[in-house]
């Protein structure tokens, strides 16, 4: 596969390490829950449950053998066609994540 890196252009996917669903960016804030149980529920859903779609999938790839950017790649899991590649940092910021 080839991932069209937003900064570096087309790169062989072999240079990357795959993590999984880009929803992993949406990590809950551990200190924001009224109870430990509520925190456990939220973290369970966050860490363990996946949409796992047959079709378009936003997912995290790390350019391990390249520039060490984490990317959010929008890829079809049936055809492997890639339609969008973004820097994960930009995506995280767009989702309102900061420090």
């Amino acid at each position: 596969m080839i991932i069209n890196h937003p900064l570096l252009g087309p790169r062989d996917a072999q240079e990357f390490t795959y993590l999984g669903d880009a929803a992993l960016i949406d990590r809950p804030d551990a200190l924001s829950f009224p109870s430990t149980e509520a925190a456990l529920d939220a973290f369970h859903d966050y860490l363990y449950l996946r949409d796992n779609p047959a079709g378009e999938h936003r997912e995290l790839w790390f350019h391990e053998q390249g520039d060490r950017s984490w990317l959010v790649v929008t890829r079809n899991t049936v055809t492997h066609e890639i339609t969008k590649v973004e820097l994960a940092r930009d995506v995280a910021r767009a989702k309102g994540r900061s420090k």
Partner: protein
Amino acid sequence: MADHRLKPITPLGHDVPHSVTLGPVTITEVVDTALASLAARMGEGKAVADIADAAGIPLPPPGKAAKAATYATFWLSPDMWMVEAPFATHEDIVAILKPHFGETASITEQTDAWARFDVTGADLPAMFERLCNFDLRAHGPGSATRTVIEHLGCYVVIRAEGHLSVIGPRSSAASVFHALETAARSAF
């Protein structure tokens, strides 16, 4: 140059840099360059660019290398570059760079993290197509990229027509060198 009694060895374990010529190419260990990573602190991109400009340190865009009088650089990561300088005058490169950048940048010594092999000769693409997926036929001098050579992440910096550097992890210098030699023998 620090005045101490320790004698360095090259990445391949020699007292002087090793060199070999195979057909039209020559592969040489290069140890006379000091390296440091230069990373702009959050929100300091402009400041770092200005300081670098004043200090004679070019900051090339992604995929590129650049050279000025004393310093040469190539792009590493977003807001991060590798700075090269003559070892003889810049052995403690961090100590030299830091005063320029102060708290605007994070600077880390990288000199001995890497083993550099310069490859010179005609038809380098014929050799490198057996090593990595970096398309040398489509990239000219001033290109720099990280690529995988024999499972190792290495930087390839094209210095000039018929001259490039392979900069690989120092601990694996022998493996990188062996890969270069094997590819040269296979290609030529």
